[in-house]
């Protein structure tokens, strides 16, 4: 799996040498890199629209890597995070992983392992963004439905037959069929199963 071409690796480490060496290493792997000397500088210039992943030092003066991870969650920025650390601190690793980190890599690191994890992270970001895109799309389509069509859709998805929907809504079965056809057309769902999956994802999704 290849990362999308514009995906960038964002490196945040307060140690200039680590930052610069890591930057050179990633560039030698043909990865676009941007470096930041603190969590705050990264946040200040953070564009949620940009795809990529974060390589984050855990311990930094000011805001730590873990705090940055929390802050990104709070801001609903779902960029995958790989932690790098000089400390084999289990408690920190557990917390980082629980909060969705890709991995917790000890310094000094093996370039192969790092490359693997970064590729993994970029792929995850791509998938996330793609599914988020689809979700957004579905939401937009569902928003096009009229209140009546929405009512019909909710009941169909819940598994009710046209006849039952017609009785409960006090409509003719024919009218329900027309609404149902409009729902399928507006949402772009090719089948009932697709429509169900779309609505379920929307209800379960973070947004």
């Amino acid at each position, binding site marked *: 799996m290849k990362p999308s071409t514009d995906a960038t690796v964002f490196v945040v480490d307060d140690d200039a040498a680590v930052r610069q060496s890591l930057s050179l*290493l990633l560039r030698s792997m043909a990865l676009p890199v941007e470096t930041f000397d603190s969590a705050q500088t990264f946040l200040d210039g953070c564009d949620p629209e940009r795809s990529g992943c974060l390589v984050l030092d855990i311990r930094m003066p000011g805001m730590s890597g873990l705090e940055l991870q929390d802050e990104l969650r709070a801001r609903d920025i779902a960029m995958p995070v790989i932690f790098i650390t*000089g400390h084999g601190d289990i408690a920190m690793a557990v917390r980082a992983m629980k909060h969705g980190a890709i991995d917790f890599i000890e310094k000094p*690191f093996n370039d192969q392992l790092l490359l693997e994890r970064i590729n993994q992270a970029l792929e995850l970001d791509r998938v996330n963004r793609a599914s988020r895109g689809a979700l957004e799309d579905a939401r937009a389509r569902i928003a096009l439905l009229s209140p009546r069509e929405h009512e019909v859709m909710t009941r169909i998805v819940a598994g009710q037959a046209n006849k039952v929907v017609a009785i409960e809504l006090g409509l003719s079965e024919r009218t329900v069929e027309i609404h149902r056809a409009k729902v399928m057309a507006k949402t772009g769902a090719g089948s009932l199963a697709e429509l169900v999956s779309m609505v379920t994802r929307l209800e379960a999704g973070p947004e």
Partner: protein
Amino acid sequence: MNRMPAPVAYEELLARYRGVVEAAVDAIIIIDETGMVEIFNPAAERTFGYSAAEVVGRNVNMLMPPHDAAHHDGYLRHYLDGGAPRIIGIGREVVGRRKSGECFPMDLAVGEIEGLVPRRFVGTIRDITTRRALEDALRQREQEHSQLLDHAPIGIFAAALGGRFVRVNPALCRMVGYSEAELVTLSAAALAVEDDREQIERSLAELTGAAKQDCQCTLRWRRRDGETINVSLHAVLVGDAPERIIGQVLDRTEQVRSEEASRDARARLAHAGRVSTLGEMASAIAHEINQPLTAISAYAQACRRILDQPGHDPAVVVEALEAITTQALRAGDVVRRIRGFVSNRESEREECDFNEIVQAALDFATIDLRANQVRLHVDLAEGLPTVLADPVQIQQVCLNLLRNAIDAMLDLPPAARHLAVTTAATPHGAVVRVADSGPGVDAEMRERLFQPFQTTKAEGMGMGLSISSSIVGAHGGTIRYADAEQGGAVFSVEIPQAVEHA
């Protein structure tokens, strides 16, 4: 005028010399061969307290104490019978008796006035009471001085201007293991060990050259048995035209040894403190070394990848290799700093730049500051006086304060952890202040702050401030606590400046 004098009668003789006799300062008494006083001059009257009238015509033995008086007639007869003279023509010191009955020492010279019949003797007398008293006093003083010298617990000597001993007391002999006879062939400089000889020679030269009133120095002497002793010597010039040096010598060997022993003990304790500190910092130090290692590793892996790429830019590789060197040196610096900090070396005072010491401690503490996300504000004053200190020990004290400050702030959110380190000149030296934004020290703890085994930390031994206090004390400095204005603690350490050498 060398004609022979014509024989004269006794009375005529008396008349001729009466003036001389009467004016004489010494008492003059003339007796006849039976011992009867014929002439008793005014000086004799003053000496004996009798008037001439009371004495003339009476036996001269009335002027003698009983024992002499009883034998005087006998002595006289013995002489007249041709016996050997006891006093006559010789003179001696005898005892006289005044009218008051008081006996007194006197010089007596007796001569016979020749050619007279009956034979007559003239005695001249000088009261030597005062002289004798002076002599006695002198003798007694000399005796006292000897006693003082003999029993003095410190070494005392008199020396010639060149420094050669002329007189030494037993304590000095014992101190250096030489006999008095041997010592008077030596000098204060000759006893000095090679390294100290020039110093004492110069001091004595300044003294005899009148460049200084006295000379005070501490030096090492070599005993006769080869042992070295530490002495402090104080010498002054004596005499109107100075011709002698008088000196006192204290054996400070024991004192020096015990000072050395306590300095060693303090150094060992301080070292133990540093080792323990390093132990506590091990994880942070590992991190500090790990950073450059990480950079080195990443640069090296990058180089490999770049070299594999066709048409790569060699300049990029060269730059990376240079960065690797820099990072290797950085790791080496950390190791060197640690080694310097824990090496078990002798405590040595040297003239140091105070800010450099504080900066070294800050470099060390950076590890902890970073790990604990403490914001550091540093303000080191320029133009601080040079301090006389063991730089590693003072660095240890500063590091201890920094680490305490960090520990005190761990319960605060990272954004509230502020540490300010400032240095300033003081009237006597230089001071470093470490101010944190923690909770400060409560009143009860404050009193025991610098005592051993006082701690508020779960894993602390409570030795840090105690060791710091002992180090600072040994430097003649002070360590203090104060509340910060916005809460928090301020610890300050003042170290005296190095005394400028003349």
